[in-house]
């Protein structure tokens, strides 16, 4: 019962924060709303029995990605002072497309008979590690390579002196 109430609260805060993260005009407030939204996503991960991923979400998304976004906003000073002009027609069009997508998804979710199995199982980090170094070791190594290339690429891109 309490779990349900907390879940509904989490979902409401999550969707409100997501809406603020795309709607507010100041980019800095967008980033702050994104942090709140990611906290709620971490809470939902705990509901889905994945405590490890909830911690990873907080550490990587909030601790690294959001801070990097805020850092970039701060580095380019007038970025959060220049306000973009809003075109009502464009907003209405985008809203129509998003609403169409949303109702299509809801209809699909409610109509489909989902395959349900028992929710009992091994959610432990031990099983996750065995999965990583056993069955899915190739994607694991590929991801480490992708991260290395991304770091080097970011350094190279942001270090071009003659481009300014």
């Amino acid at each position, binding site marked *: 019962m309490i*779990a349900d109430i*907390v*879940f*509904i609260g989490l979902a409401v805060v*999550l969707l409100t924060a*997501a*809406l603020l*993260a*795309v709607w507010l005009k100041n980019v800095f407030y*967008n*980033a702050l709303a*994104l942090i709140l*939204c*990611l906290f709620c996503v971490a809470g939902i*991960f705990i*509901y*889905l*029995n*994945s405590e*490890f*991923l909830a911690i990873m*979400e907080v550490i990587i998304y909030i601790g*690294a990605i959001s801070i*990097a*976004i805020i850092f*970039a906003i701060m*580095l380019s000073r007038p970025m959060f002072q*220049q306000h*973009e002009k809003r075109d009502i027609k464009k*907003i209405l*069009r*985008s*809203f129509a497309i*998003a609403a169409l*997508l*949303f109702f299509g*998804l*809801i209809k699909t*979710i*409610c109509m489909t008979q989902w*395959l*349900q*199995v028992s*929710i009992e*199982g*091994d*959610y432990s980090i031990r*099983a996750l590690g065995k*999965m*990583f170094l056993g069955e*899915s070791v190739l994607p694991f190594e590929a*991801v480490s390579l*992708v*991260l290395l290339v*991304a770091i080097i690429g*970011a350094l190279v*891109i*942001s270090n*071009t002196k003659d*481009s300014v």
Partner: protein
Amino acid sequence: MISQSLQSYLLVSAGLFSIGVFGLLFRRNLVALLISLELILNSASINFLAFNKFSLANKAVGQVFVVFIIALAAAEVCIALSLILLLYKRKDSINIEQASDLKG
């Protein structure tokens, strides 16, 4: 038992996905587009974990996928932010309407 049914998680993630698409379509600021993209990736993660809990026998598979999503999102943000800063240095603006040099 709302928190014990697959549909409620799917509904939350559908809402998050639609909000992300809405932001992606109407914002003109590159950093705001990046934030909308993060929302979309998170809705995909929630979907993976929901199906992992409710309709998969091996409970580690979905978690592995979410770890990959988080790692790729980190790489993507790293590259995108450096590109955005470079564009800002060149154009003095991050409005995507003005970044039309590559238009044929």
